[in-house]
């Protein structure tokens, strides 16, 4: 039997999809409206899934009293009401698509213990979602 726990978090942020290596015309063709010069925003929802043994003393894989502040600090506070391109160092030279955002969130959360980070899913809107799953058998420590 395998047990996992998934918690949903929310933040709102703006971004602009623009690759410096591409011409203006190519950026416009590839990214469309998402390339508009002043950016736009989304209400992002992040689903964080952890696995691990359920501690019999607490009934928990992870204590939400520890997980919530960790995710608040490393993700929600870091990204909420920010411009991802301008204010997040990792997106200075990386296009803040939600694929890249999802990977960055996974990177920020993977050190959480004692549970193992299994999956990060980011819903950019109610219609688009992106997810990264830890490779089977691999420790998410890498």
């Amino acid at each position: 039997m395998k047990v996992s726990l998934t918690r949903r978090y929310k933040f709102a942020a703006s971004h602009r999809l623009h690759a410096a290596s591409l011409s203006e015309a190519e950026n416009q063709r590839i990214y469309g409206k998402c390339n508009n010069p002043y950016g736009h925003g989304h209400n992002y929802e992040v689903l964080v899934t952890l696995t691990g043994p359920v501690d019999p003393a607490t009934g928990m894989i992870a204590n939400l009293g520890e997980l919530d502040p960790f995710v608040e600090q490393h993700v929600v506070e870091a990204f909420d009401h920010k411009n991802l391109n301008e204010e997040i160092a990792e997106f200075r030279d990386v296009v803040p698509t939600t694929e890249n955002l999802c990977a960055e969130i996974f990177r920020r959360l993977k050190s959480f213990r004692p549970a193992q980070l299994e999956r990060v899913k980011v819903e950019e809107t109610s219609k688009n979602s992106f997810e990264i799953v830890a490779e089977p058998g691999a420790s998410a420590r890498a």
Partner: protein
Amino acid sequence: MIRITRKVEFSASHVYHNPAFSAEENRRVFGKCNNPHGHGHNYTLEVTIAGEPDPQTGMVLDLKELKEILQREVVDRMDHRHLNKEVPELAGKIPTCEVVAQVIWNLLEPKITTGKLDRVRLYESADLYADVTNGAGA
């Protein structure tokens, strides 16, 4: 293989308290969930069955049958109950989302005789759920 999922809802109360912990430790570990008179949630349970459709009926498992199993094993047992005090399967356990989902898996697994129980997903709120699957691991 096809997976089918049925959803049911129930409402219940619970409290997190480990008698082996001091009062301070219970408070520190469980926070508000340790409030002595308990609190409640509207739970949503999604149960997934995996199997091959029967060529005669086109069904993996008759949803009427699954509905009856969920009613009998889960809703009748837990709806409008205090999970710690009124559900014997949870006696002496901390009824977190993870633990209640495991108990539900153990209740349902032997009752699913057509197809196989594939996943139990229990939402304690819209922002928190536990999954139990048959996978190796924890």
